[in-house]
């Protein structure tokens, strides 16, 4: 069903320079670049759909852990503050920083959650060559929102804030923070194992439901 297949030869225009390129058949693991501007035109990651499903489920579980378990604790003179992932957003909101609260929740909650649920909606049916209503629109949104998924940048922010605050008081990462750390790598692996062209071609040949 979902054995890795070679991608057929295809003619495309390079998205970066518009040059017409003839891409030969790509075996699993191969990729093709534009002959003029060197942009990546197409990849054929092995077993894309199955790996995508496995990694998406892993990401959903890690994100659930991140949201529910304590993230960081910070204390001084007996007063300890425990925070969860959302505490920062709520803190900004309470201070009247609605714009910042909106941006942070969009880039670390709304977009990642949409991407994970959207990938489930696409990949699970695609595994049986079925597409659900609105699948093309979901895929377009996923691809266009990709730069706005900023969980890995948030992680670096946590580290910097940690160094900044350790002089003030003891800072302890909770289980939520470790789950979040793993989530970064899983998200990166999702990006590497999924190729838009594979998904578009599978969607095109899939049965409508």
């Amino acid at each position: 069903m979902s054995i890795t297949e070679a991608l057929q030869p295809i003619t495309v225009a390079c998205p970066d320079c518009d040059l017409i390129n003839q891409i030969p058949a790509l075996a699993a693991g191969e990729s093709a670049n534009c002959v003029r501007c060197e942009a990546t035109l197409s990849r054929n990651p092995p077993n894309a759909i199955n790996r995508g499903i496995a990694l998406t489920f892993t990401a959903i579980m890690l994100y659930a852990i991140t949201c529910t378990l304590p993230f960081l604790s910070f204390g001084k003179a007996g007063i300890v503050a425990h925070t969860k992932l959302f505490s920062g957003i709520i803190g900004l909101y309470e201070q009247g920083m609605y714009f910042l609260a909106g941006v942070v929740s969009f880039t670390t909650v709304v977009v990642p959650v949409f991407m994970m649920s959207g990938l489930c909606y696409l990949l699970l049916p695609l595994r049986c060559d079925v597409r659900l209503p609105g699948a093309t629109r979901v895929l377009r949104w996923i691809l266009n929102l990709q730069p706005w998924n900023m969980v890995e940048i948030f992680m670096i922010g946590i580290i910097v804030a940690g160094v900044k605050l350790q002089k003030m008081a003891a800072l302890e990462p909770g289980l939520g923070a470790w789950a979040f750390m793993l989530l970064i790598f899983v998200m990166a692996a999702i990006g590497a194992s999924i190729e838009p062209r594979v998904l578009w071609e599978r969607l095109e040949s899939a049965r409508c439901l």
Partner: protein
Amino acid sequence: MSVASPPLTAARAQHVSCIDCGLLMPTASAKQQANTCRRCGAALHSRHTNSLNRTWALLISAIIFYIPANLLPITLTTAVGKTEGDTIMQGVIYFLFSGDWPVALVIFTASIMVPMLKMAALTYLLISVQRHSSHRPLDRAKIYRMVEFVGRWSMIDVFVVTIMVALVQLGALASIQAGSGAIFFCGVVIITMLAAASFDPRLIWDECGDND
């Protein structure tokens, strides 16, 4: 010396390729479908609509926003009744002199170097395209890819502020609030990301091959 024929682009071959799914189709058949992609439904354009004007508008707004972003405090720290504001640069200097130079380097790179280089690079790309330059297109394409790739990382400082606001709420002992500089800085990052997205890298190559 033989005269090379101009490189065959989709535009020259009367084709248009979908920006979202990559499907290549003849311009004539695209017109029949009201210029929407038959595979994914995205609007079809040979080049981004009004790319240069939009990018200029966003870039100039970002440059204007960048001034208050650096002059206004991004955090307000209250400790033992005294409130102090810190700008981005004051944060970098604080880390540098307290011995945390790796952190100083991260913040300096993400909050000062990257936004400035990004705005300079976009300005250069816009001017070179407007002057119909055919100078080193591959290098300019690489500059563009770098700008697109690295831009989001400037958000680090906004997230640092968020986390500190969440953590440092120890009542009378100490508290940290987000300053108005953080809003402007966040604006700069978002606007420059939108500017990079509205610039069409194919314009760099459109002038190449016509005159040689």
